[in-house]
């Protein structure tokens, strides 16, 4: 079971979180014309990397904040966690 450092609450067990997918995907702006290819990429296309992956998790059984987690998909090593407003390099 992973041990995830919530930037708001500290280290907590994976049980308290729910996974939210790739954190680098950016939704096209609302009320703007979006080429359909861009839209399709946003809705459907996801990379499935082996190795470092920046992803979203929500601390559902805690502060309910969505957070960013940089994790190795093969080893589960977590390199960094951050608030969604912060950048992970």
């Amino acid at each position: 079971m992973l041990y995830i450092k919530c930037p708001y609450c500290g280290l907590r067990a994976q049980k308290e979180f729910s996974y939210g997918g790739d954190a680098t995907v950016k939704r096209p702006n609302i009320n703007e014309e979006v080429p359909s290819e861009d839209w399709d990429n946003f809705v459907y296309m996801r990379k499935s990397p082996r190795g470092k992956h920046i992803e979203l998790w929500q601390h559902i059984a805690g502060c309910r904040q969505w957070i960013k987690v940089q994790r190795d998909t093969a080893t589960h090593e977590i390199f960094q966690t951050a608030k969604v407003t912060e950048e992970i390099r």
Partner: protein
Amino acid sequence: MSQPFRLNKEGLINRNKKISFTFNGKKLFGYEGDTIASALIANGIHLVGRSFKYHRPRGFFGAGVEEPNAKLQVEFNGHSEPNVNATEMELVEGLSATSQNCWPSVNFDIGAINNFLKMFFPAGFYYKTFMWPKSFWYKIYEPFIRKAAGLGVASIEKDKERYEHKFEYCDLLVTGSGPSGLASAYAAAKNGAKVILAEDKPRFGGTLLTDDVSIDNLSGKDWAEKIISELKSMPNVTVKNRSQVFGYYDHNMLVMFERVSDHLEKKSKFTPRQRLWYIRAKETILSTGSIERPIVFGNNDTPGIFLSAAAKEYMKVYGVLVGKKPLIFTNNDSAYETALEFKKNNVEPIILDTREEHSSELIDEAKSKGIDIRFSHGVIVANGYKKVKSAKIGKLNKDKNSFEKIETVDCDCICVSGFWTPSVHLASQSGNKLKYEEKIDAFIPDKKKQHETSVGAANGSFTLEESLKNGFENGSNLSAKITDTKTEIAIPNVNEKKYGAHDKFWCMPLPKNENPKRFVDFQNDVSVSDIEIALREGYRSIEHVKRYTTLGMATDQGRTSNLNGLQLVSNIENKIVPEVGHTTFRPPFTPITIGTIVGREVGMEYMPTRKTPMHEWHEKNNAVFVDAGAWKRPRYYKLGSETLFEASKREAKNVRENVGICDVTTLGKIDIKGPDAAEFLNRVYTNAWMKLPVGKARYGLMLREDGIVMDDGTTTRISENHYHMTTTTAQAANVLSHLEYYLQIVWPELNVNVVSTTEQWAGAAIAGPKSRDMLSKLYPDLDVSNEALPFMGYKEAEFFGVPSRIFRISFSGELAYEINVKSDHGMFMWEKMMEVGKDFGNQPYGTEALSTLRIEMGHVAGPELDGRTIPSDVSLNGLVSKKKDFIGKNSLGREAFNVESRQKIVGLIPIDRKSSIPEGSHIVQDQNAKLPNPKLGHVSSSCWSVENNNPFSLAIMKDGKNMIGKKFFAVSPLKNKTIEVEVISSHYVDPEGKRVRS
């Protein structure tokens, strides 16, 4: 009742307390502190089971977790448990053990015919032989093989015991209380670290209990006792025996299995049987020790053949002799300690040492005591069927591949030692790539992967001095990093015997024309020839060899067989062992009970039960409940002997004719506040929200970004910047996360807050033509006329003195209201409604009637919004704004969503107006068409229309809008029903929606 193999005083058992038990029906006794194995051996019983494949007689081989053979069906304290390791299970009064895998008895087993046919049962035999005819596999071959093989029998009784889970955090977890483990725990404890020390066995001390050593002038056992009692007195230390750390998971999470009370005769009813510990450790010391491995020789599985260290443990811990005429067969010095122990107890052993004549401290001591030592010797084959009677032994030539002399000697047991294998399972589970250590012919942990530090024998250090030093240093250094305190501890003086070098010898050759079975893996009956066959047939990867031969599988995980198997493969393949590699170690290290894994989460505790504030009233009034997520909702209220069908029809009809009330507390409720709340709702919902006035509700539809409907519900504007959203019961949690996602990540610039208020409000719907009359009685001072409180209107008013919210919304399609009060007032509200409603013919209705009402109105719910439908599929495109953007809007333009023949919701009635249409039925044109019969749609919801008094269903059908008036078949292979149906509008009752506005 004498025990012929019990020593007079040796051992750590309590001779003052006799314990009686039975084995295969025979009454026996042992002492407190015995295992089943030690008690049976004391009674001279060695034949305990039959082997898996050949049904060969098997006895004990080890004295602990390494045991491959002695798995028994054991009944105690009202349990019946299969595959219990006789060498681990402690004796308790009244225990009854029986042999497994034999019929009719362990002494006479019909399956043993396999042994005489063994040339027909090589590796892969079953795969090769039972291929044809294919259809025979499931019905004939497989059940027969299963019956013939199989281990014990799982109980089908309900387990009445209590199992618990515990979550723990510590600075240092030490797994094993041998010398290195004790030293590590002690050093870390002195540094002030929070330490957990776990020992699998009942007694602490590991090899200190059996080795002839002294530490600071104390015997190993006394030193261990001293350290343990000091550790127990420290508040920062938890010391646990009968507790095995069996799994090393991600992020330094280790799981421990504690046998709390299996060894107790009496316990309180709250004492759990076993406990699972989830331990998050900052650092882990793996002091799991090592396990002796055997040397492979002919008929090496005969009862009476033991690992040499096990024989010593039986003497020193249990005061039991495994035999009185022992042969000690070894390639190293450690078995000499076993020989000396026999000698001490006046038993004359013969030592067969594969090494050439040489001298070492132990050899010299054995010689000086007059023990018969034969160098360059080994056991070729053991004689005896159910017990060793003699052994053919041979003097090896210089190359150790043939014999200079062969003779037969009498013996009643053979104690074998092929050197030591570090227990590296936990390190490997943690992700540590192991490395091969040439010096000891075994794998040891390599570079750390997580925070695991292996010490002592588990790390390949086989001397006490090194193990202690190792333990003290690592325990101190690892904990000092955490606590910032370093207490100097003097490393104690150690007195131990020096071992000479071992012989890299693991398998006896066979004389010409002799071909006894030489087993590598006892538990799975894998012999040398099986592995040879696998390699001849082209298996190369060790993982494939393992799967083909089953080498190293099953409950003992190859603890005594893996390395010998690897040696064999490496010899045949002409590769060195590290090139062959090793198979994967997987948790659990030893079998653990399912009960422990499940813990307290059984029955009612499987998951939380959510009850509405009115639950007790429903219970008292014969409600039959249905699970809606974790909620319990009344499905119907049973009157007399009513069936579900009769009751739901009555309840629904009463709503259509009079008035009914329904507990709607379970609907998801989300409070939305902030100056940008309207803008947010406008983006979340497909319809327009900017102009909704205060005091009005609106029905809204939510999509996912891919255009599929996510949820629906009404949202009410309570005040300028305050909205009350409702969601379906099932989607409440998802919708909240969805809203939070957009507010926190996508549009953080919107000043809006959301919070779930589902449990803060109790809700009741009042529905039916008489609901306004009833409402006016509930709110005598309030103008509830159609003008003052129109459809989709909202008011706040006191309900008999408590604050309440009145929403004029309807799910049933009737004139209806929903009243919310604070949860604490829910029961009060409900009882008042029942009281006031009497004059209007009010009856409570459950979810079944609720479904009937919404289905015949054509209102969609979960079965239609099933994650595959877009708004137009369910005739809700009127709610999709063309003027503004919203979540999922861009996807609605996709080509497949706009084809002419796109699926659409329709209504179905059976042609005979009688047969109800099963939900999930497929709609086909021709019921007799060739398979696969093209599917035109499926039935999503079905009911008995109380308005029209015949069955009615909703269905999602391809090109639905052009199907009205046509006839099809609804086919349900599940219910074995085919019903001819006619397609009609999905709005079966009040299609213009006049009633809700009346």
